């Protein structure tokens, strides 16, 4: 009779393995904190107000920019009075990304992965014309790109769109000339940062009477461009490059171990294998491809990969708890079908998040300026899916807690029958119970650390952010630490739950002759899994 590696591993070896894995974890954390820079950078760009003298305004080959040959004619909006020669449709806000720094014309690197734009407005207060608190602004946004070596005016159209946004402004002291406090609006999301330079032209069309009529006196427009930090991407990808072969290797080893056995793999082993596959998918460093190809779907894909991983991790926990319920209803091999009710919460949550993601980031593949939150219907739809996902997550965790509690109840209940057994066997089973509990604890600690780390990051953010003295990049450390932790966790599961080569100690049969009957009972169940020798013990004691 064989068990899992976990059951047969001596305490010393287990301790060595665990301390090795813990050291790896600490290293991941330190890499994030000391080597990696912050995960994302932002650059705030003040729009240059350009004057469009052309008659036809929908010419997409005409671009307005403020640097280089052919730069636009600027207008000062604080002094400008609209007259017959300057109409509102002549005004274009131009944003040339990225800004020059340190006297160099810098360009985006493909390591920076993605670009997110946020729009902010400076609206001046005029007592004669107050802005309604919730108004809608219509913008005509056009995005162009250029690459290194292109001439200054060689902008090529990337995408254009006419979008609506909610402008939410309020003001504390109503003094003439003061600015409203306007909330920031999401503007665009580019899943790939393939080109070197980008140019954004924003106009505020006035085609109907109501269009852009209640937005007050706009003085300035600011666009904040957020991109992933190139240095962070490098560290992140290196981590993935290290983890990926490790996980693939251990997965192959695990599967071979199982196939060496005479039986078919049991449910828990299959689930563990699936979890390993999901982690492989997550670890696969396909981001390298973005350095060569233009792959705008990377944001969506990374969401899907993460979602797939979470779904398999959550399902695994459920099955793990269920398989150790210590009640063997049938002697057949359990299948996932048995858990369909339990897993439906996971499935529902994942599907609703997937639908939401497809609605937002999926459509953004076609139109980067799209936002689901603008239309009433879209907001309701998005909220529905998010609430649905939230409810199913809540239900899942309630259910999982209930199941884990039940397992522990069963263990303490069954433990009462332990003194009736022989000493060797009792010690052995106690060991198994202890190690199962240990693993449960590990899971709990991992989950708790993730949650605590996340909350700490959110709370401490305000205090740490602008302090130059702190060298530790907390956010990066959190990301690499959590990422490393779950990798190591699954690595440990794959190692410890693989079937062991070791046989039961031989002396067991010889010394404990009085318990021979128990041994026979044990061997009567050849179709039962070795992995659940613990469960067999429970079944056995139930028979007792």
């Amino acid at each position: 009779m064989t068990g899992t590696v976990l059951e047969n591993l001596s305490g010393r070896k287990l301790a060595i393995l665990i301390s090795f894995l813990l050291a790896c974890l600490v290293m991941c954390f330190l890499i994030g904190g000391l080597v990696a820079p912050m995960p994302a950078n932002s650059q705030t760009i003040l729009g240059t107000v350009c004057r469009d003298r052309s008659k036809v305004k929908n010419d997409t080959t005409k671009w307005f920019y403020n640097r280089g040959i052919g730069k636009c004619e600027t207008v000062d909006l604080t002094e400008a009075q609209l007259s017959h020669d300057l109409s509102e449709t002549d005004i274009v806000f131009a944003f040339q990304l990225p800004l020059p720094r340190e006297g160099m014309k810098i360009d985006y690197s493909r390591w920076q992965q993605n670009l997110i734009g946020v729009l902010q407005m400076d609206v001046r207060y005029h007592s004669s014309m107050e802005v309604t608190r919730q108004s809608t602004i219509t913008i005509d946004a056009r995005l162009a790109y250029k690459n290194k070596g292109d001439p200054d005016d060689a902008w090529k159209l990337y995408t254009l769109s006419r979008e609506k946004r909610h402008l939410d402004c309020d003001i504390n002291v109503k003094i003439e000339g003061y600015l409203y406090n306007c909330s920031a609006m999401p503007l665009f999301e580019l899943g790939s940062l393939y080109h070197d330079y980008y140019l954004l032209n924003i106009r505020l069309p006035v085609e109907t009477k109501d269009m852009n009529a209640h937005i007050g006196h706009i003085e300035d427009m600011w666009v904040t461009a957020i991109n992933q930090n190139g240095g962070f991407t490098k560290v992140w990808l290196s981590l993935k490059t290290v983890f990926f072969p490790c996980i693939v290797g251990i997965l192959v080893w695990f599967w071979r171990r199982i196939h060496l056995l005479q039986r078919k793999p049991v449910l828990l082993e299959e689930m563990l294998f699936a979890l390993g596959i999901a982690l492989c998918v997550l670890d696969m460093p396909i981001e390298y491809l973005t350095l060569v190809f233009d792959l705008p779907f990377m944001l969506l894909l990374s969401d899907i990969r993460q979602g797939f991983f979470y779904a398999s991790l959550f399902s695994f926990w459920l099955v793990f708890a269920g398989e150790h319920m210590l009640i063997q209803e049938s002697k057949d091999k359990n299948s996932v079908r048995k858990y369909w009710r339990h897993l439906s919460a996971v499935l529902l949550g994942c599907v609703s998040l997937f639908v939401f993601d497809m609605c937002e980031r999926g459509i953004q593949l076609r139109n980067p300026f799209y936002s689901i939150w603008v239309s009433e219907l879209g907001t309701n739809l998005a909220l529905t899916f998010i609430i649905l996902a939230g409810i199913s997550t809540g239900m899942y965790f309630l259910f999982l807690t209930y199941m884990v509690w039940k397992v522990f109840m069963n263990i303490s209940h069954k433990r009462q029958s332990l003194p009736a057994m022989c000493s060797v066997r009792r010690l052995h089973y106690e060991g198994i119970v202890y190690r199962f509990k240990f693993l449960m604890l590990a899971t709990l600690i991992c989950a708790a650390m993730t949650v605590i780390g996340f909350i700490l990051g959110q709370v401490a953010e305000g205090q740490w952010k602008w302090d130059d003295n702190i060298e530790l990049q907390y956010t990066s450390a959190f990301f690499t630490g959590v990422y490393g932790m779950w990798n190591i966790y699954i690595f440990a599961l794959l190692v410890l739950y693989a079937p062991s080569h070791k046989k039961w100690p031989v002396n067991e049969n010889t010394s404990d002759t009085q318990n021979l009957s128990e041994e026979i009972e044990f061997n009567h169940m050849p179709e039962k899994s070795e992995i659940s020798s613990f469960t067999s013990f429970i079944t056995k004691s139930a028979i007792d």
Partner: protein
Amino acid sequence: MLTSSVITVLVYCTVSGFALRNVEGTKPVLQKTIEALFIDRTETIYPGTCKVFVSSMKQAKMCKKEPSLPKIIQNARNQAIKACNDTFQFDRWNCSLYFNKPSKSIFKKIYRETAFVYALMSASMTHGISRGCASGELARCSCLGRSKNSSWETKDCGDDFKYGKRLTKNFFDIKHAGTDQIGEILKQDVNIGMDSIGEQLKEVCKCHGFSGSCTTKTCWRRLGPFNSAMGLLKKHYHHAVKKKFVNFTTKRAITPKVRRKMQKERKNLVYLQKTPNLCVSTKGRVCKDRHNCATLCCGRGYSIAKKLVSTKCKCKMVDCCAVKCDTCVEEIETFRCK
């Protein structure tokens, strides 16, 4: 006896003459720059690369390196003077260059007003430079990230305020503003001005993590409007602290004890000299309301005139960027000091 006294007088004259010239010659760049910027309200273009005023060697170099800096300095100056005129319209000191008569310049000694002007100018400069960085006008703004020799893709180049502060300090040559009491006081006033811009920065955040959740959040600081910083500066003006005069002429270095005391009062504008009574100059000034007139006119009383004034009203937004209004005629009471 006579000759010796003559010699004494002669020696005294030469020495004081030298000393005077010496004092004039070594007047710190900070003082020269701010005075030049505040006093000249014309659009005169001076020779040299900085154009707006007669610059020092170092400043000329900076203007040469950054060709749009003169334009930014000019805008900053205009913005500061306009804001000052608007805010002090109904105060006894109406942002004028002198007290009561042209010979009494506000820069002669360090008055409350002098301290304010230093803070105002440095605030406006910092604001202007930060904006210049954000619009891309200034090409040499640096990324003040923690790693010095890494490429920009790993650095955070977002905080233009920090750079604005640094460039302003460099331009005014704060380092060489003097170690005497005047130098220390002016430095502090300049810092108060720059910090008033810093206090107006608003933090804005955007979540962009898994499915747009807040697992990843990026925050940045957004530059506030100049006139709200102006409100803060006016508060500082009213709460300015008068310092005891420590030997003015010998330029004695500040003792550690004084320095410690100064550190405590870092949060206030400081000045040395009491402002003369400005009641003489408020004659004929327009005041806002009865309450304001009582203080502005120094109890001399005021005349009330009723005037028909045409104002803009029923304004409509024609577009994002401009207001179109009708003209309404209103009867308005105007107050004027006697």
